């Protein structure tokens, strides 16, 4: 005991710091899309098992966030947006974050496998690996396409929610995956446009830093178009009803208008980037509303066909 105290021992981190490690705001979006995937599935699930599935998805997302912050503490310290996180601010030892992340990841996957089903547990495990290793360790620091490929990590939750209920993966959950996958680049690049200097200072090769703002604005529009089609596909293929179809069409129209405003903007001054800020804010509302209506549509029984 005496000897142990001579090594690096740290004041125990506050439990709120562990909570902050899980990126609660990101987790809320993950929980929401997972819940919508779960509710949109054509079968039913016992409320206790459904709650367990959502809890495991939330814990898995929290584990991914903790491992991401553990690995990116050096980058976070260089950016205003992230410099107050527990690790760069010195409120927690790095090893605590690593142990917390690994423990949470293992726990979430194991409980999902035991209480829900193996398929959802396998997808959850893969999504944690994808975010913590493929995106955080490999892509983020090496390519401006980091968001495009890494966006897949954030697209898994509705797939997991669906798999938790049905035990399989059909076309519909893959469409949900595609919507979030294609939504991620316009969403993050809009943000990256008006905080470009932050990413530049940290040496993160975000598209605006590497390819410039003009190219980024073009790319936002390029990704918006397939995203709009993906959002309409559940309705076109008859998996959802008119409620979803009308809502998606309206939301798509607004998203396209905002994306065109961004495309037409030539300003390099962050203060003059209202179109980018508006698109970023709307993109969050877009996803929330779209998935909420998707779940509502299924629950009130507007769907026309039997799911494949």
């Amino acid at each position, binding site marked *: *005991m*005496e000897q142990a*105290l*001579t090594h*690096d*021992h*740290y*004041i*125990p*981190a*506050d*439990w709120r710091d562990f909570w902050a490690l899980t990126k609660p705001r990101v987790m809320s979006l993950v929980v929401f899309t997972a819940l919508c995937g779960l509710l949109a599935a054509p079968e039913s699930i*016992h409320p*206790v*098992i459904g*709650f*367990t599935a959502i*809890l495991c998805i939330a814990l898995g997302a929290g584990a991914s966030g903790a491992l991401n912050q553990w*690995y990116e*503490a*050096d980058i976070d*310290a*260089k950016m205003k947006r992230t410099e107050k996180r527990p*690790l*760069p*601010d*010195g*409120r*927690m*030892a*790095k090893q605590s974050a690593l142990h917390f992340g690994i423990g949470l990841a293992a726990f979430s996957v194991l409980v999902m496998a035991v*209480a829900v089903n193996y398929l959802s547990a396998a997808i959850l495990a893969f999504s944690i690996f994808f975010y913590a290793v493929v995106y955080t360790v490999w892509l983020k620091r090496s390519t401006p396409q980091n968001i495009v490929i890494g966006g897949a990590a954030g697209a898994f939750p509705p797939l997991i929610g669906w798999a938790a209920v049905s035990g399989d993966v059909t076309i519909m959950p893959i469409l949900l995956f595609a919507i979030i996958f294609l939504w991620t680049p316009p969403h993050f690049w809009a943000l990256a446009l008006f905080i470009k200097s932050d990413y530049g200072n940290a040496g993160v090769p975000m598209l605006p830093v590497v390819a410039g703002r003009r190219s980024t604005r073009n790319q936002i529009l390029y990704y918006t178009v397939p995203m709009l089609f993906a959002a309409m596909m559940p309705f076109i293929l008859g998996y959802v009803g008119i409620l979803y179809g009308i809502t998606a069409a309206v939301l798509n129209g607004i998203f396209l208008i905002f994306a065109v405003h961004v495309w037409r903007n030539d300003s390099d001054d962050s203060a003059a980037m209202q179109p980018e800020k508006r698109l970023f804010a709307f993109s969050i509302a877009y996803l929330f509303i779209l998935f909420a209506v998707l779940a509502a549509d299924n629950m009130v029984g507007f769907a026309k066909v039997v799911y494949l």
Partner: protein
Amino acid sequence: MNDDPNIKKASPIEDRAAPARTNDGEAKIVGRFDANQSQHIRDRQKARSNMMGIILLGLCVLFFAITIVKIGVWG
């Protein structure tokens, strides 16, 4: 990455405060610290213990409920 100068280093316990216990559970004090710092650490440990207790209690209830569902008592 561990030695990045931009990351503030968490304070080693011997520099700020060190409430510790020996193997037989007696309070053991190591390093320099004042009463406020000791109290701060005890408060933090207490808050963490309370939170851990709540989480464990919640998990007990959850696992009990899962078990009941799995054996088919709740449909």
